[in-house]
């Protein structure tokens, strides 16, 4: 999937931008507070209809204007699409695909994968970050996963509600536990599957990005059993059911559901020791980069095409050598990437385009 034209009107500080990006790497160079992240955000809104930053649509409209308009032309599997996202304070949001009004349809919609400095804490940070990393990939490639996830979350909050009120004797608590286990099974199986697929990808990317030859293992960690890795659906269901049964007393004390996919995690082992606790800052960051890049290839193998990769100020967080290796990888990877950076000297060669952003306007180099 590649974007070949972008038009931005009255979005944040970008009054009017017309741009024809390269099919490979696009470097957005500019000082701080010039509009680099706003540009990436515009692409993100074009794809997802909403921002990755906590902002209402009204906040995305340029100060003093009444509406924003984003247009993108992209090509996926030999087909061209014209996508428009228009928001006006009066009429709300209108999305058009090939000039027809539309909701976000899954098939062939613009898909982007965002990488921000926050994602560098993927390895080191709290488990919910890793869970939502898995959930995000799986919901993006499977509507079924999204459905199960919504069902699970809904069931969980109802079950927690009963635990909060200490009403666990009734039939409804038992039924909710059954439904919880049932909707947990497809989530856990899909996540285990994904983690196993990520392992090989991450290992080879990590080696390429760092030059290290450490052995890498990624293991899904169930909250309800020390067994992990290859658990089959009936096993997951039995294990969770029994564990919940055994944890009843504790759940009543804590007034919440203590076991299930909402408490699971995954661990990355470098030479046999957990990277979360034993890895160096640099190793953790490189693993996070490898995880993101692995997501790109996984997406490709599941959907048949790459999403568009958006990297916001990630380069600044890496040392000179890792930055070079990452850029080399991006230049040869075969997908389209947009990188924002303060430093224009990071790229050499000619397989990329450089754009300068200053005060909300964008000019192409040369």
């Amino acid at each position: 999937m590649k974007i070949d034209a972008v038009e931005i009107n009255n979005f944040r500080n970008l009054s009017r931008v017309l741009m024809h990006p390269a099919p490979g790497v696009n470097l957005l160079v500019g000082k701080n507070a010039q509009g680099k992240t706003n540009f990436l955000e515009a692409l993100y809104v074009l794809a997802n209809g909403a921002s990755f930053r906590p902002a209402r649509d009204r906040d995305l409209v340029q100060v003093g204007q009444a509406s924003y308009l984003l247009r993108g032309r992209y090509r996926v599997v030999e087909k061209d699409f014209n996508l428009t996202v228009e928001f006006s304070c009066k009429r709300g949001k209108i999305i058009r695909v090939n000039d027809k009004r539309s909701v976000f349809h899954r098939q062939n919609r613009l898909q982007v994968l965002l990488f921000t400095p926050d994602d560098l804490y993927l390895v080191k940070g709290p488990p919910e970050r890793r869970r939502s990393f898995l959930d995000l990939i799986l919901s993006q490639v499977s509507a079924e996963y999204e459905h199960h996830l919504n069902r699970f979350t809904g069931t969980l909050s109802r079950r927690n509600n009963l635990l909060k009120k200490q009403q666990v004797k009734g039939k409804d608590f038992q039924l909710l536990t059954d439904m919880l286990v049932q909707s947990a099974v497809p989530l856990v199986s899909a996540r285990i599957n994904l983690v196993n697929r990520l392992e090989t990808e991450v290992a080879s990317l990590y080696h390429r990005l760092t030059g290290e030859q450490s052995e890498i293992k990624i293991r899904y960690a169930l909250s309800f059993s020390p067994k992990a890795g290859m658990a089959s659906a009936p096993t997951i269901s039995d294990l969770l059911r029994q564990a919940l049964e055994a944890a009843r007393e504790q759940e009543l004390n804590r007034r919440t559901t203590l076991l299930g996919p909402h408490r699971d995690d995954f661990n990355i082992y470098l030479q046999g020791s957990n990277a979360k606790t034993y890895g160096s800052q640099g190793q953790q960051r490189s693993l996070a980069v490898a995880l993101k890049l692995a997501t790109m290839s996984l997406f490709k193998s599941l959907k048949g095409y790459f999403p568009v990769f958006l990297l916001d100020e990630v380069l600044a967080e890496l040392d000179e050598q890792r930055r070079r290796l990452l850029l080399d990888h991006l230049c040869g990877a075969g997908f389209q990437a947009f990188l924002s950076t303060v430093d224009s000297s990071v790229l050499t060669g000619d397989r990329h385009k450089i754009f300068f952003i200053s005060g909300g306007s964008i000019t192409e180099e040369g």
Partner: protein
Amino acid sequence: MRLARPLEKLISELEKLPGIGPKSAQRLALHILRQAPSEVRELARALVEAREKIRPCSRCGNLTDEDPCWICTDIHRDGSIICVVEEASDVIALERAGYKGKYYVLNQAPRFLESGSLENLNIDRLLRNVVTSQVKEIVLATNPTIDGELTARYIAELAKPVGLRVTRLAHGLPVGGDIEYTDELTLRKALEGRQEI
């Protein structure tokens, strides 16, 4: 801007109705003011009469002006099958679909998160009063939401030990629909529930 007091009152009453915003309320109010007094009196009478005469049937919970309702007393309907629905509006939908059995209307969309219990769902009354010896099957037609599903399972648990056949409405393709445009989940459900022809 100030409006004549009675007009203002009318608008604010209309605005309380579902689906009616301030603008629609204003349009309706002005329309009513242009109508002949007799027509308006008819409308007012219809509103009051409906509200006063119609209540839930003591047997099935469907909305009726005579108790038991015409469905419960109709001897030509199949009394061996009872369809459980959330709201009276679901009865209207199933009637249109040509269903010929009896009903049981829960008369409240189950909102488990707010109420936190299934006990006030009148389900005991279903089993005590409505399920007589001639009933053979209960069809669960609650919505495919988490609460609908939970309610359905709850009823099934209670009804099965009594020896009743308990069924749930199928998920699948809409008639006249296009396979190409059907979302993958519905399509998968339809595939699971495929039938021999």
